[in-house]
């Protein structure tokens, strides 16, 4: 089993940290994982994306050309990444911030009010956690509990309030499916 995931949005949406949490959780479940961020000049443009591969086999390339799963957090990323998704792939997108809709009919599209839910919990910037919660519940690639553990172990400087809030956001995301 190999799942190739691309997460994309703009800087400040926690794109990179979501990717790392996902990769870290994969490691905690003893899977082979890679995380690969876009880097360099591309970082300056305001967009951010990263690739995560979670597999039972050794990971060949950490660069994902044809993802199984997309998590799209803003409008420009939708147009850019939609064509890359594998037929039959799963397309999660942040409906709060994205007005258009994916055009393809050979994929599963899941619109999530990530920012709205996050705001409801009291913090817009945990929209990424809502998405991750939805992702693991829908796809079963990892356990929700592992994600909770992962975020607690990675965000070493976060307050306990913040960690609890992250947990809640993960749960709310997972409750969508």
């Amino acid at each position, binding site marked *: 089993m190999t799942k190739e995931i691309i997460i994309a949005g703009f800087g400040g949406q926690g794109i990179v940290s979501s990717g790392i949490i996902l990769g870290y959780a994969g*490691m905690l479940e003893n899977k082979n994982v890679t995380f*690969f961020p876009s*880097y*360099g000049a591309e970082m300056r443009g305001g967009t951010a994306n990263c690739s995560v591969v979670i597999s039972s086999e050794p*990971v060949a*390339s950490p660069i994902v*050309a044809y993802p199984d799963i997309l998590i799209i957090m803003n409008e420009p990323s939708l147009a850019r990444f939609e064509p890359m998704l594998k037929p039959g792939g799963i397309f999660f997108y942040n409906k709060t911030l994205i007005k258009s809709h994916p055009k393809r009919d050979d994929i599963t599209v899941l619109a999530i009010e990530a920012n709205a839910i996050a705001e409801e919990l009291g913090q817009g910037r945990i929209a990424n956690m809502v998405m991750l919660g939805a992702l693991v519940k829908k796809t079963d690639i990892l356990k929700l509990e592992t994600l909770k553990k992962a975020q607690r172990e990675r965000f070493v400087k976060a307050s306990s309030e913040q960690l609890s809030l992250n947990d809640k956001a993960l749960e709310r995301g997972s409750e969508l499916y």
Partner: protein
Amino acid sequence: MAEKRLMYGNHAIVEGVLAAGCRFFAGYPITPQNEIPEYMSIRMNEVGGVFIQTESEIAAINMLFGAAAAGKRAMTSSSSPGISLMQEGISYIAGADIPVLVVNVIRGGPGLGNIAPAQSDYYQATRGGGHGDYFTITLAPNSAQELFEFPKLAFELAEKYRNPALILADGLLGQMMEPVEFSYDPVDPTTLPEPSYALSGCQGRDRRVVRSYDLKPGKLEEWNWRRHAKYQHIMEKEQRAQAADCDDAELVIVAYGTSARVSSAAARMAREKGYKVGLLRPITLWPFPKNALAELSNKVEYFLVVEMNLGQMVEDVKLATECKNKIHFHGRPGGGVPTPHEIYEKIETILGGSS
């Protein structure tokens, strides 16, 4: 099992260098290896080592020359254009028979190129790189785990042979995160013996001189011949390669570093389709693992060299196999990374109909 951490390749190098007992780093920022000096500045501070951000790569390599001549494990990292600037220093260090470790996180070239991953510094790394007759021991890791483990190996080989050692990574290996197992106990630098050449003040012994020149007639020639013998010995004893599924293979892919990772997926796809494909991954690029290639050349019909350049290693494969076989090449220069699909297609073209 030892502690496992999800780490950037560039951070794994730093931990590997520190675990190898190195406490001296000098370097200059350049993408895509900036995480090395950044993280190193924090870690060296924690372990009481030396971290210097230099005015140039030229200064960095020469600070290494000083630190290593003083008998300490010393390393620098850079990326392609910066490594070019270091070549003068590397030549002097090789000429003075001093061990240092240089990490090249290769980017696209020539010139300023781009910051995407590449393998286009293969010739530079395996042919010496600077002026004069010399070689540098060159290791090609392909995972964050090996980025952690190879610094220790590189220092050990460098010191054993009193020769500079290189680790060739690329932007992809440096920038990605993977689990890293801290697989060995860190070396305590205070337990490392003082080398015979170390400049430390001549108290209680004859004075020592570290230099790469000799103007006395015939002396430099003699010195070069001695070094030649050393290189011959290294070429005989230190070849390293990893073979997978080569025993029954009709076609063997030869690839290192990132290309080898991608190729392994292509080889898997080919096997699933019934093609007998193996993979030989050189771990030492110099010395080139020619014995393994020579052996395979007697039973394999096709070789496919996959590199992120215009085919620099093809020469070494041809030499090692004495051109007995059909040697194909698939490359992506200028920052391109091959995909398993395109490599598979190449395999299909070569073996098409033969399976």
